[in-house]
Structure formats: structure tokens, C-alpha cells
């Protein structure tokens, strides 16, 4: 299979480059349908490893790359379940999304996130699994999870710690503030900043450069320089589930889901 169109995303392989486009209203919230389609993508793309040099992940939605996990779906599925069932469901979702992001992280080809608009929470965690982040100059990055009494659960902290200085990680995580592309590039989160509306074109140009290199050397270099922090990723799932079990989290989720505030992502 060299192309796919699903309910939340589509992808196509062409001349050694896969373009995966997230396309779910309103802002590519990652819920069970997108997760299942990402799993399909990971499985299908693995069969193309030997003939793929690069993969670009971008968004077809105007608000941005991804606003993160689908909190409305999370709340509604959690509220209708008992405590044990709720935790079992969340852990199952986390195990699956971790498997997807670990596969993207470890892919032998080069992965590029072409980011515009919001890149928050789970969306940022998806971008962090990629090798290179190209950002539109109007893009914004945030880990707002603490507002819900949670931590990022899709591998965000271990991957951010792998790539960046701990002081910035603390700033982003503990304040929940969003940072612009200029700042994100200054701290090393973003590799390249593109003009407004040009992130995908810059990502394509970068992918075209990557296709020139020897596949074995490229894969070896990536494996050498980008270790996957498996142990911390496992601990993150445990910690997330521990925090998720508290009543305060359900209250925060309810507040978020019912909010009509102009900035509901803020505490």
C-alpha cells in the first residue's frame, strides 16, 4: 500500500518520501480513531522502509499541527466508566500511542514535522518523536497538561529531556505557557523556521536533500544519535495513570469540556 485516506489522516508515498497529513476537525485532536489510523500508518510504512528516505508529517487543518489529545473523548469515555475500567482504558490508550510514537521515533528514514499554528500537548509529543521540526513562524508550542492535574502522557517529557536543556523543559512544563517558533528555535526544539504558510514547502525541500544520502549511513547515524528513552517512557505511563486516578483530574476535564472561555487551554 502506497497511499491511504482515512477519517482523520491521509498519507502517500512518492519518490522515496511519505507525506502524512493529519486532517481531523477542529484541530487534529488525537483520539481513538486517529490513534487507530496512526497504527495503520506505522504498520504500512514499515513495509516501505527500504524504499523510503524521509517522511513529512503535517496538518491539513488551519488552526495548526495538533491541539493534542482529544480531551472531550477522554472525558466522555472516562465519565461513563467505573474507576478500574477508566484507568484500564487510559493505560491501554497510552500503551498504543507510545508504540506508535516509538515506531516513528525509531524509523530508519528521516522524519520531519512541518508545524504551523498550535502544536500543543499530544501534538507536540508527536512532533518530538520526529527527527526534525520545521515551524511556521506563527507556530506555538506548549505542554498545558498541568492545568488538568496531569503530565504529558504520550512520551513528551522523556523526549523533550532527550533533546533540550532541563531548565527550558521545566519552564514549558511547569508554567504551561506557549512559546513561539523563534523561542522554540533558540532553545533547539525547532530546527528551521519558515515564513508564514511555508513550513510544508521547507520540509519538502529538506526531505529532497535527505534523499541524496546513503540509506544505511543515514539509518546508522540516526540510531547512534537518537536513543529512545524506553525506561523513562514506561515510568511516564505509570505516573500519568497514577495522577489520572484522582478525582481532581475528572473535575478539571469537566471544566475544560464545558468551558466557554476564550483561552480554555489555560488554568
Amino acid at each position, binding site marked *: 500500500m502506497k497511499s491511504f485516506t482515512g477519517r482523520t489522516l491521509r498519507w502517500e508515498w512518492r519518490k522515496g518520501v511519505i507525506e502524512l497529513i493529519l486532517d481531523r476537525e477542529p*484541530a487534529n485532536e488525537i483520539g481513538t480513531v486517529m490513534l487507530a489510523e496512526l497504527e495503520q500508518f506505522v504498520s504500512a510504512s514499515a513495509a516501505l522502509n527500504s524504499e523510503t528516505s524521509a517522511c513529512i508529517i503535517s496538518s491539513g487543518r488551519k*488552526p*495548526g499541527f495538533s491541539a493534542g489529545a482529544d480531551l472531550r473523548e477522554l472525558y466522555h469515555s472516562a465519565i461513563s466508566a467505573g474507576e478500574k475500567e477508566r484507568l484500564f482504558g487510559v493505560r491501554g490508550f497510552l500503551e498504543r500511542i507510545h508504540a506508535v510514537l516509538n515506531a516513528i521515533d525509531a524509523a530508519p528514514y528521516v522524519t520531519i514535522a512541518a508545524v504551523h*499554528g*498550535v502544536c500543543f500537548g499530544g501534538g507536540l509529543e508527536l512532533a518530538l518523536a520526529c527527527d526534525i521540526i520545521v515551524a511556521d*513562524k*506563527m*507556530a*506555538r508550542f*506548549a505542554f498545558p497538561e498541568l492545568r488538568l492535574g496531569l503530565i504529558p502522557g504520550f512520551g513528551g517529557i522523556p523526549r523533550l529531556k532527550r533533546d533540550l536543556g532541563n531548565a527550558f523543559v521545566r519552564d514549558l512544563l511547569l*508554567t*504551561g*505557557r*506557549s*512559546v*513561539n*517558533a*523563534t*523561542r522554540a528555535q533558540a532553545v533547539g526544539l525547532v530546527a528551521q523556521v519558515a515564513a508564514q504558510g511555508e513550513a510544508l514547502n521547507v520540509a519538502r525541500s529538506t526531505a529532497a536533500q535527505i534523499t541524496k544520502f546513503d540509506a544505511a549511513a543515514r539509518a546508522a547515524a540516526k540510531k547512534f544519535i537518537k536513543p529512545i528513552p524506553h525506561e523513562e517512557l514506561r515510568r511516564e505511563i505509570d505516573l500519568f495513570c497514577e495522577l489520572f486516578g484522582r478525582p481532581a483530574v475528572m473535575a478539571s476535564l469537566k471544566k475544560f469540556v464545558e468551558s466557554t*472561555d*476564550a*483561552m*480554555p*487551554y*489555560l*488554568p
Partner: protein
Amino acid sequence: MRTLEQTTQEVLELASKHFQVPAGSLAPDDDFFKKLGIDSLQSLEMLSRLENHFGIELPDYEVQGVSNFRALAERIQSRL
């Protein structure tokens, strides 16, 4: 160093340009959420534009609850 009046004027001009409303139709005490009909994602776009223009960082929590241009300009002024 800009004065608060200059900063306010630049904020009004940027908002007018970004949201494509006639220059001069916005006033310092206007509620920008009501006047421009913007949502949270659009307010983030505006935040990026302001940060890029003034060369500052303006944390979300500092502008939370701010709804008029004058108060927004005051927050920006404190970071210049």
C-alpha cells in the same frame, strides 16, 4: 523606548492589519474578543504576531483575562 501610547497604537495597527478590519475602527478600550469576534486559536495567532513585532515573549498567563487593547499594550510595555 516606546511610550505606552506608541505601544497601544502599534497594537491597534497590528490587530487591524491581522484581522483585516479598517484602520481607525479599533480603539484602545475596545474589547477585542467582542470587536473582532476572535476565538482562542486566533488570539494565539495575534500573540505570536505581537511577540514577533515587539521582539518579546508574552506568556499566556500574563494576557489571560486581558480583553482590551490598552491593557494588552500595558502587558507588552512591561516586557519591552
